[in-house]
């Protein structure tokens, strides 16, 4: 059951082969068994989950079910969900029970999906290994000594370890795609503006975007159908007609022009990862795709640009955590300034503080033009690179991350090396484009462990249906996405 597709599970629920309560209980049992070690979830609340499952069963009985009704999924702990503790991976929000639902959560609720709980994540989504979480690190199910990636590391581990049927993630610089790559699953960051940011705790507003994490592209298409759509409460939400992301699934790929950016296959890419990606490209050629070389010359500037813009926005977004109205407040303080300083010093972890400091610095009088403004200009150049590339091709393929999952603690004290994890993913956020990672095989690392490798698929704006079909076609001729780590059966 834990390896069935969402479509299959929906069929079982519709055919009364299983009830949502039974299915939910099955996942809750697995969580109880495996989560104490894997630590994919920060909060599990069986009563809340089972109440949703009972309501879903009622809908199923009434014939009022949609494709996700009764399906147990996991929500990244960045989404406010009414009645659920919503921590964003931070001590700052350790006691915060959200009094309202995020737009994305509302949509899943309306669809009748069951929430199994809130998944672990890097604090305020700042990190690429899930090690910055106040709620402890998350194990990569493929090698428990390794990180799952981040910031949606909990969601990735939960999907990989079959602790949920699918999950939500958010991606500011690669936070869906990199953990999907490191944990061997599929993850999609949609075009900026497709999924509502309302109720999704902000890290960097102009980059943050929610998306699905699941086993297959077909599963992700079903998740996308539920989680995207206009929300008037988010001014950056796009007012477009509702799409069916499953509509292209099964279309042949013949004639598809696939671009390979030469900069993505240069220095810095792990050879094992390169081999897997090249093999995947070869598979696409076999499927009828035409392979062309493209260039994204400003890609290498995306990390410095990102580490100006994202911290700048974050430094301001995180100002509301001041100990005044909600969240952590220091127990003792002398005056207002002392209360601010102590509450924030105690409530935020080191990486969050580092980014608040960077962001405050780049926005300061006298530095704004040199950093923030310059970074915005380069951001436009990066977007123009993609626009030119998409004149030559329909989709761009490349690696998602430069390496496979690394050991816990390996990069924790080396922020720059950690930041380089997102070298291939960040440009996509800066341009607002959709990007996806799908499992493409395994690379064997020095200690002999075989670790998953993700293939990144980048599309033009609103081309998610085409991307999902390209991934689906690949998943019809490969079985990487069905592989299961050992020790979780």
């Amino acid at each position, binding site marked *: 059951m834990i390896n069935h597709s969402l479509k299959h599970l929906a069929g079982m629920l519709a055919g009364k082969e299983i009830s949502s309560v039974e299915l939910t209980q099955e996942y809750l049992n697995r969580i109880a068994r495996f989560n104490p070690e894997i630590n994919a979830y920060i909060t599990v609340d069986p009563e809340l989950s089972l109440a949703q499952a009972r309501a879903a069963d009622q809908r199923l009985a009434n014939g009022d079910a949609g494709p996700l009704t009764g399906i147990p999924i996991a929500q990244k702990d960045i989404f*406010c969900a009414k009645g659920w503790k919503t921590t964003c991976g931070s001590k700052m*929000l350790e006691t915060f029970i959200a009094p309202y639902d995020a737009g994305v959560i509302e949509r899943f609720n309306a669809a009748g999906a069951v929430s199994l709980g809130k998944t672990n994540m890097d604090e305020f989504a700042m990190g690429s290994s899930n090690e910055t979480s106040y709620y402890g690190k998350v194990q990569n199910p493929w090698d428990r000594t390794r990180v799952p990636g981040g910031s949606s590391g909990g969601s990735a581990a939960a999907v990989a370890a079959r602790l949920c049927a699918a999950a939500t993630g958010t991606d500011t610089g690669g936070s869906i795609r990199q953990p999907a790559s490191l944990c061997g699953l599929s993850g999609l960051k949609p075009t900026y503006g497709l999924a509502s940011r309302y109720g999704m705790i902000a890290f960097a507003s102009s980059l943050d975007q929610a998306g699905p994490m699941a086993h297959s592209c077909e599963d992700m298409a079903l998740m996308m159908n539920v989680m995207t759509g206009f929300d008037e409460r988010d*001014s950056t939400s796009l007012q477009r007609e509702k799409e069916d992301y499953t509509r292209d699934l099964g279309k042949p790929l013949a004639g598809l022009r696939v671009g390979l950016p030469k900069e993505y296959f240069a220095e810095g890419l792990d050879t094992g990862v390169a081999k897997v990606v090249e093999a995947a490209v070869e598979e696409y050629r076999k499927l009828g795709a035409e392979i062309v070389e493209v260039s994204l010359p400003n890609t290498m500037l995306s990390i410095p640009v990102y580490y100006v813009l994202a911290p700048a926005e974050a430094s*301001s977004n995180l100002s509301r955590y001041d100990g005044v109205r909600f969240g952590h407040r220091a127990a003792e303080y002398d005056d207002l300034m002392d209360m601010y300083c102590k509450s924030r010093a105690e409530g935020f972890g080191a990486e969050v503080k580092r980014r608040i400091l960077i962001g405050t610095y780049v926005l300061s009088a006298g530095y*704004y033009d040199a950093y923030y403004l310059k970074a915005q200009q380069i951001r436009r150049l990066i977007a123009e690179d993609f626009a030119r590339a998409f004149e030559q091709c329909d989709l761009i393929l490349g690696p998602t991350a430069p390496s496979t999952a690394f050991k816990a603690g390996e990069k924790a004290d080396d922020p720059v090396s950690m930041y380089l994890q997102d070298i291939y993913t960040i440009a996509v956020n800066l341009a607002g484009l959709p990007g996806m990672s799908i499992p493409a095989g395994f690379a064997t690392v020095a200690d002999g462990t075989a670790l998953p490798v993700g293939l990144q698929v980048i599309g033009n704006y609103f081309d998610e249906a085409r991307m999902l079909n390209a991934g689906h076609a690949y998943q019809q001729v490969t079985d990487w996405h069905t592989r299961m780590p050992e020790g979780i059966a």
Partner: protein
Amino acid sequence: MSTWEVVIGLETHAQLNTKSKIFSGSSIAFGAEPNTQANVVDIALPGVLPVLNKEAVQCAIRFGLAVNAEIASRSVFARKNYFYPDLPKGYQISQYELPVVGKGALTIQVGDSEKTINITRAHLEEDAGKSVHGASPGQSGIDLNRAGTPLLEIVTEPDMRSAAEAVAYARKLHELVQWINICDGNMQEGSFRCDVNVSVRRKGDEKLGTRREIKNLNSFRFMQQAIEYETRWQIETLEDGGKIEQATVLFNPDTGETRAMRSKEEANDYRYFPDPDLLPVAISAEDIDAIRVTLPELPSAMKVRFEREYGLSAYDAAALTASRGIADYFTAALVAFGGEAKLVANWVMGNVSAKLNEESREIADAPVSPELLAGLLKRIADNTVSSKIAKDVFEAMWSGEGDADAIIERKGLKQVTDTGAIEAIVDEVLAANAAMVAEFRAGKDKAFNALVGQAMKASKGKANPAQVNEILKRKLAG
């Protein structure tokens, strides 16, 4: 002899009278229980986002049109970052580089002359909440009802040269924002408050002196006092060899003094940057035209029309367009009267204004409606009552004794125009005042006026004064 010149610029916050807040759906009504008008957006819970209230932008455009300003086709909201307990997000959403309203101008009347005050810009922003001290011992409370209330901050060039000019500008602006219906103008509730930048320099100097900013003045009287005190203080400081440090000061109405609250060194670096949660505001020429047609005739245009159509002086026209209420009252009275505008103008600016001032009433609450006033003016015009008697009738109308005709009838105030009756009175007066007659004949013209006064008195004021004059003249000559 002062060799000093004061230079003044104003920043005014006008609270816009939209139905809801600028970035959330909460009500902005004044006086509600603390925090009952603060939703998840206003208290800045994690994950919430602002959505621009288009009504606020429309208000800004109305203002821009009213001061003949450039209206930006693209304007941007920016975050002004600072920590304060009543600022829930840790930043205020404001406009920085690209405000909705650009350069404009407002003409003020100071005494008999006009002066144009240049407006630098006007931008939209949200208000902060309010700290409440003393509600519970040892603790401060926060009321976020006001947080997110839409404000238009209107900034002038340093164009004013006296406290009187600054106050005249502030009054004019105060009337204008009410005139175009974007602000209720309630200064007690903080709907209209001014920050005044004051500096002094030697007359003839090109360079501006260092300015100090007097914050949050919410009465014109305080503004006048504060500027006068601040000007004196700066001049004395400089004459004593001191230096003015740039600072923010507060005016204490009890002492009549200004006092520095923070110096430039302590000023925040607000780290403005465009708010990524809000899209730039696009305003098309069509949008502007659609708003233009909803604007009432503006006071400046109305003033010119009053001069042209009614032959009123610039002074009268300015006084009658000083507020929407006065202009509406004047216009309604004139329509109902149908006679000479100057007579209406004199009464509105004279007796009506005097009574309003005396009783501190708004013109909208005047017990004598424009129609009632017109009824009285008709009786003046047709000589039923003299101007003097008309004042008594007006007083009676003000006290609610009915319309002019009823009062004249009941009190028997109708003017005596019967020549025979007046001649009889004049004869009596001449007979009783032989000494005055003699004085007049001896060349003392003043005696003539005294005789007129006696005749009027004898008629209990009801005799037509022109007739009294004429008859008296004839009889004395005869």
